[in-house]
């Protein structure tokens, strides 16, 4: 225990504590302070030692002293060893009950004394190491939580804010609702919407493999790529082809992205879209019927030669487009059964009778009554209703 914790000895004759010092020295404890009865209170008030050895001949020694020492908060966990003759079992028990950690009863050879002190010193050393580890882990955890919170804010900043959504709603005569929920602090989903011209806007939803930090880093990559001005933003299949070309080689071997990209044309009452391994989109028609759009295409980032196909769906006023990441139907209910794509279509159909103005909240409320709230994967759901013709305005 080289350079170990200081040991305080309370001894009625400090000059006679030499053998005790020697034993402690051989156990690696160099920093030993010896005080008499008068100096004990002052030495303890200056700070808690790592171990206190009290000679039973010290004035005032006894259960009451032990109990008083233990009332001091900084001495509560201190090993206090009493050294002396303790003839009666009752007295020994009383000392231990009052706060003595152990009794070193004489007669005792120096070798025995060494053997008795050694485990106490070792326990103290281990206890201090453990406390240090716990403190370090607490600090690390606290720092990690703060860093994660900052990273999460940054990720949420990638998504369209309320101002952009309301602006799109006015410009194109739509109601745009979204739900974004990561399974951990950070997620691998990303969605976005941006105007193309007065009649068309682009809408996308992307889901990277996995979740957590690695998947989240990929969403930042994609967000940066989508900001490139040379993307053919009004051609979904071409947009996916170009994005795929950029992501191949950028993503590690087993990471890729499922993506839906659409151009919604409110003048032509339709949407043109392409998918890369994304869930099939749903369009709820004004008559309450449901169209399930086809979906096929390699995920982004897997094969450089991948090509994508544009699909078309009618999207007249009064209809709604529902997009979601696969977590919505791959999640398992309390009974362990998967919710399933059929479950999603039933859920959307079920809203037709009493569909409120903003049906996404209603949909999710119903969903989470059947499903555990803690999802195993990141969940994004978009609900875009065509509320009517666009409102002319300065946007």
């Amino acid at each position, binding site marked *: 225990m080289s350079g170990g914790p200081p040991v305080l000895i309370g001894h009625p004759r400090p000059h006679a504590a030499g053998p005790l010092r020697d034993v402690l020295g051989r156990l690696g404890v160099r920093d030993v302070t010896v005080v008499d009865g008068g100096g004990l209170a002052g030495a303890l008030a200056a700070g808690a030692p790592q171990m206190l050895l009290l000679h039973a001949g010290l004035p005032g020694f006894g259960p009451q002293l032990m109990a008083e020492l233990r009332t001091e908060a900084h001495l509560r966990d201190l090993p206090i060893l009493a050294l002396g003759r303790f003839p009666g079992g009752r007295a020994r028990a009383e000392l231990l009950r009052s706060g003595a950690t152990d009794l070193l009863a004489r007669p005792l050879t120096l070798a025995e004394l060494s053997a008795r002190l050694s485990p106490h010193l070792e326990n103290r050393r281990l206890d201090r190491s453990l406390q240090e580890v716990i403190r370090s882990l607490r600090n690390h955890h606290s720092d990690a939580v703060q860093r994660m919170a900052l990273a999460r804010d940054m990720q949420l900043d990638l998504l369209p804010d309320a101002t952009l959504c309301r602006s799109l709603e006015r410009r194109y005569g739509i109601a745009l609702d979204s739900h974004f929920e990561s399974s951990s602090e950070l997620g691998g989903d990303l969605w976005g919407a941006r105007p193309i011209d007065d009649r068309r806007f682009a809408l996308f939803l992307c*889901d990277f*493999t*996995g979740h957590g930090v690695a998947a989240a880093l990929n969403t930042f990559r994609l967000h940066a790529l989508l900001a490139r001005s040379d993307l053919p933003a009004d051609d979904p299949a071409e947009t996916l082809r170009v994005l795929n070309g950029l992501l191949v080689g950028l993503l590690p*071997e*087993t*990471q*890729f992205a*499922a993506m839906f990209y659409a151009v919604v044309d409110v003048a032509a009452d339709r949407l043109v879209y392409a*998918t890369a*391994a*994304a*869930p*099939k989109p749903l369009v709820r028609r004004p008559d309450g019927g449901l169209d399930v759009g086809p*979906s*096929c*295409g*390699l*995920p982004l980032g*897997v*094969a450089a030669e991948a090509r994508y196909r544009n699909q078309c769906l009618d999207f007249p006023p009064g209809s709604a487009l529902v997009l979601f990441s*696969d977590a919505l139907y*791959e999640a398992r209910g309390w009974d362990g059964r*998967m919710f399933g794509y059929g479950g999603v279509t039933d859920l959307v159909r079920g809203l037709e009778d009493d569909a409120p103005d903003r049906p996404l909240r209603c949909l999710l409320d119903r969903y989470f009554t059947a499903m555990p709230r803690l999802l195993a*994967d990141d969940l994004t759901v978009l609900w875009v209703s065509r509320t009517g013709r666009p409102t002319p305005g300065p946007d």
Partner: protein
Amino acid sequence: MDYTVRDNGGVRELELRGQMTFEADAGFREILAEWEKGGVAECVLNLSAVEYMDSAGLGLLVLANNAAKRTGVVFRLKHPRGQVRELIEISEFHTLIPCEF
């Protein structure tokens, strides 16, 4: 996920069972390590008993396909069912890895 191996000449058929998700990663890498040792000219992944696959499972197929190219193993898929078949079709993995439906 567990699996049965059947060797017939240079053709190895692996019948996978259970779920192909992130949890299957270690087991799957064991399978691929066998390829590196040689002696397998062709490997068929029989998916008929795989009841569920997610995107991490697709990632394992990418891993296998790349390992096959690297080691000269002819690699193909066989008989995906239900959700697994739908996932392979939506993600067009049959255009990447030959698949007998």
